[in-house]
């Protein structure tokens, strides 16, 4: 695709992004100045952003009109959370990067989302075979419960901005958890087919939940600074809520596995590149494009 000449003229092909370039944004990736607090915030921001991107794949494809709107609303809530957090990560980084640069001009290795959110969740989405509405429902539920637990604790952060973002987001996560939890109940305790599909989705998702609670040096630094909780702290509250809904939906909790995904370290599954290609292509083809 050839950009219109008006857009192309400002940015000759192949022109690298020069910091401080008065013409604005470039197309090449930004160099991230990574510190533990920046990585801590980016982990949450990227988890919200990539989950929103995956949910947005349902737009116009939902099983019924009403749920299509519900999924898109949730994607927009998550995108709003991601935007606030990315802007905040940019402030913490101190290199003048804004939310757009952080979302659209970072390379795969500089994204720190949970690997779970990259996994396919809609059967017919591009490059994502195998997904199912059950994957969507279940992942929404597991993540909303995790995010709610996290937001609740982040509301007491020593970082005022982060506390304010969390205070607003916790209401949204509560609703997401209720809505997705109701679906888990319906599908799990529904027909034979819906139960079988939800069980399969649970088996697919469960190994990735290990990463949600894997404490590392970034968590320890955040905890020491009062920025937020280590991920290991979230497990007990999360498991209590998740186990209650799984039991009500007549689903057995899968056994924990040693498999540990590494998205929060910047090492992603094979799906991540395709998501970024789709998500970033417009901003990279039309640098600084706004509408």
């Amino acid at each position, binding site marked *: 695709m050839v950009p219109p000449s008006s857009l192309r003229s400002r940015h000759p092909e192949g022109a690298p992004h020069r910091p401080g370039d008065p013409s604005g944004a470039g197309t090449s990736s930004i160099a991230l100045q990574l510190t533990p607090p920046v990585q801590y915030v980016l982990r949450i921001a990227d988890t919200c952003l990539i989950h929103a991107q995956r949910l947005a794949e349902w737009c116009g494809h939902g099983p019924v009109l009403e749920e299509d*709107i519900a999924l898109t609303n949730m994607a927009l809530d998550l995108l709003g959370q991601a935007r606030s957090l990315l802007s905040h990560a940019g402030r913490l980084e101190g290199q003048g990067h804004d939310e757009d640069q952080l979302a659209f001009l970072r390379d795969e290795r500089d994204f720190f989302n949970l690997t779970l959110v990259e996994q396919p969740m809609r059967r017919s989405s591009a490059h994502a075979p195998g997904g199912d509405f059950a994957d969507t429902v279940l992942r929404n539920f597991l993540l909303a419960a995790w995010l709610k637990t996290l937001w609740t604790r982040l509301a007491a952060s020593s970082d005022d901005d982060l506390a304010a973002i969390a205070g607003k987001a916790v209401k949204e996560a509560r609703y997401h958890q209720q809505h997705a939890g109701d679906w888990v109940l319906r599908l799990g305790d529904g027909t034979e087919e819906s139960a079988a599909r939800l069980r399969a989705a649970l088996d697919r998702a469960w190994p990735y939940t290990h990463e949600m609670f894997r404490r590392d040096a970034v968590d320890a630094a955040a905890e020491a600074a009062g920025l937020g909780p280590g991920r290991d702290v979230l497990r007990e509250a999360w498991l209590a809520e998740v186990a209650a809904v799984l039991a009500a939906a007549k689903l057995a909790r899968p056994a924990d596995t040693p498999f540990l995904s590494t998205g929060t370290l910047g090492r992603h599954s094979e799906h991540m590149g395709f998501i970024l290609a789709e998500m970033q292509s417009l901003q990279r083809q039309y640098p600084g494009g706004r509408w």
Partner: protein
Amino acid sequence: MSAVTNEWPLWEVFVRPKAGLDHKHCGSLHAPDAKMAVQLAREVYTRRQEGTSVWVVKSSDITASDPGDKGMLFDPMEDKVYRHPTFYELPESVNHM
């Protein structure tokens, strides 16, 4: 025996725009049950801050007047203008009547 159907029942949605005002009918939607109908009504009808409270009623639970009876039910009121309080002189101090 009723036929098995894949259609969810239809619900009528009433939204209260703000405290002190009445719930107002604003549309309908399909939902599997009342609880989900409230959630989906929230998604479909209040996402631009239109409401502070939502009611849902199964459409099949509403008993409506027959459109064929419109003439019989409503036309007789046409020539009874004396039922409107329009023949009173209102004092200046009474506004918004």
